């Protein structure tokens, strides 16, 4: 591409300019492929740029393909052109204003795992026992497969919540998000062509028979489409649940972000947290949620809160949903009321799972009157004192994907 016109970039090699800007974006993690750079060059050819804003929009529209990359693009653009005096000086002709000051080696080694927030601090592996290195000086030239050591996360999952610091809790929250891969489904009323469907799709079969002289040799089948099932989680944030509250909020956030989940917190009254937890960063969301729940770390009214949920317009959300109640079952309400509320809940929900932080302790028996009252209406009682057990809860939720109603394991 010949150097050419435009009041903003006089005598700048546009190809070099575009490639350099693309390079710099790529270095910052924005996926800029060749097609995109090509688009940008063509766009620069057919527009006469007169202001920085025009350059910004042209570059942004051509080089960014995802909303998530916009912030990074803005940062790079600001770094490159923020203080630059435009029209650009002839220096830019040599390697473009966006060229990063770096060597010629494009194949510089990249650290194996750059996603530190997932693996935790420090390298989660060692290359070789040090004794071998000491014996033989030439070992650094031999390639060795790194031996994996348990990362921070793996070591932390079995630690009770009380002993975790805020950093570890955040780390494990991220780990929970990544753990939610499969999701329970429900059968919807809509049908689509499926290989082993129950019905014969007449229209598709006739269409297919066109290939065989209108002789329906291959039967095309229809099957019901599976839709993700809703999950509703209620979390107790009363005083007795104080150590677990933040961890449970992380779990609720993971549920909200990954799929169609509705989450509520309760102590003496019910607060809906779905929108709060779904937005912004994890810390901000947790902080906002804690602020929103006015009555946290006070007394508990499980039965009253459940009734409030059942009676409110959110009651419809429970229909056919997997309901998770996270509480230690120390209730201020009489157990009969809880039993009545649980019976209503049971009739409406597809599956009820009780998450109890004390159930993991050895020798635990559901002997408190409230737990005994609620248990007949639960499909499963799951311990919830470590992140490993929360992962177990996720496995339980995923189990609900199976269509037949098998008796869930009870503890």
């Amino acid at each position: 591409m010949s150097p050419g016109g435009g009041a903003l970039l006089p005598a700048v090699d546009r190809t070099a300019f575009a490639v350099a800007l693309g390079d710099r974006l790529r270095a910052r993690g924005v996926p800029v492929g060749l097609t995109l750079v090509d688009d940008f060059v063509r766009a620069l050819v057919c527009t006469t740029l007169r202001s920085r804003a025009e350059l910004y929009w042209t570059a942004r529209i051509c080089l960014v393909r995802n909303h998530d990359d916009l912030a990074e693009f803005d940062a790079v653009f600001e770094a490159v052109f923020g203080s630059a005096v435009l029209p650009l000086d002839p220096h830019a002709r040599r390697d473009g204003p966006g060229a990063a000051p770096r060597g010629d080696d494009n194949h510089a080694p990249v650290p194996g795992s750059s996603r530190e927030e997932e693996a935790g601090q420090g390298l989660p592996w060692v290359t070789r026992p040090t004794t071998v290195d000491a014996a033989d000086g030439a070992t650094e030239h031999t390639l060795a497969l790194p031996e994996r050591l348990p990362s921070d996360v793996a070591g932390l999952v079995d630690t009770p919540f009380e002993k975790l610091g805020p950093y570890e809790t955040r780390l494990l929250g991220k780990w929970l998000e990544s753990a939610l891969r499969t999701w329970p489904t429900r059968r919807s009323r809509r049908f689509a062509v499926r290989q082993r469907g129950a019905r014969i799709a007449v229209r598709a079969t006739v269409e297919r028979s066109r290939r065989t002289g209108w002789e329906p040799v291959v039967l095309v089948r229809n099957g019901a489409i599976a839709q993700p099932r809703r999950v509703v989680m209620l979390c107790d944030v009363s005083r007795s649940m104080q150590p677990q509250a933040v961890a449970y909020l992380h779990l609720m956030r993971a549920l909200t972000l990954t799929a169609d989940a509705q989450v509520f917190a309760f102590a003496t009254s019910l607060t809906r947290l779905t929108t709060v937890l779904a937005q912004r960063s994890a810390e901000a969301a947790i902080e906002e949620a804690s602020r929103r729940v006015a009555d946290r770390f006070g007394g508990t009214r499980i039965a009253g809160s459940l009734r409030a949920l059942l009676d409110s317009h959110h009651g419809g959300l429970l229909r056919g949903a997997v309901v998770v109640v996270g509480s230690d079952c120390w209730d201020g309400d009489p157990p009969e009321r809880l039993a009545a509320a649980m019976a209503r809940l049971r009739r409406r929900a597809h599956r009820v799972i009780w998450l109890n932080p004390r159930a993991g302790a050895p020798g635990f028996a559901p002997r408190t009157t409230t737990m005994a009252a609620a248990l007949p209406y639960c499909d499963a009682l799951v311990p919830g004192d470590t992140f490993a057990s929360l992962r177990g809860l996720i496995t339980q939720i995923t189990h609900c994907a199976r269509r037949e109603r098998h008796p869930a394991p009870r503890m």
Partner: protein
Amino acid sequence: MVSALFEDADEVSRRLDAVGQLVDQGTATALYLATTLERPLLLEGEPGVGKTSLAKALAAALDTPLIRLQCYEGLTAGEALYEWNHQRQLLAIRLTEARSETLTDADLFTEEFLQDRPLLRAIRHTGPVPPVLLVDEIDRADDEFEALLFEILGESSITVPELGTFTAVHAPVVVLTSNRSRELHDALRRRCLYHWIDFPGPERVVEILRRSVPGADAPLLASAAEFLGRARTLELDKAPGMAEAIDWVAALSALRVDRLVRGDVLRTLSTLAKSPDDHVALTEALTQLGCPPEGEPHASDAPHTEEARKP
């Protein structure tokens, strides 16, 4: 590049302005580049920010038909590209049998029996100006459907096995919109130019509202825009977008309101809040949004209320 549709981005804004659509510089640049480079344009943004209306306005500005394909779950090639008219084919077979004529396979697969669906219609359009093809809410269609679009997006052509490949005389201006209910595939993103439409600033909101609701008067528009700006900072299930704002101001002006008062806002709140939770949240935040209760002056709000009552 043959006969560009627009000279530059300013002309895009001017001509869209003439058909009643206000666009900012970014959107104008996006449309200009999409038409000049002949690349599809992927528009994303919050619901109700004016993605679909932008495509409509573009078609109006170019004075060319808008061909719209509304995507939905389970959308198939038969509904998007073309279908053979089975009934007519069968009738033709019966007819030739009755007349005891002979019929070859080629007679049955002619354009006469081809039913155009939106994508093929856009490709086969004949006219001096290419049509605007709007693939609306592509995120609602299944992943497989995206792959179907690649041929038309890349080469502006559609292959019908029995007839051959149709290639567009002028590549249609393709606009795709997405609400980000799921991530689109990278291969689709790569083929399109991308523009994220931001929610406009208060001045522009007033401008757009003035265009859309000619009956409303200036002070109402200004205070409504301010109200919206504050309401959008609340944690709502669905923050009110431009479409809701237009509905709301239209409702206010239909009720002949000339000043934002609590009672009128409450009466028309259903145009802004689209869920019971949002309704509650907005009602609770009305004081903070600039509409204090009238009957009962609160201790802390008292000076504010007095101020609001003065005019």
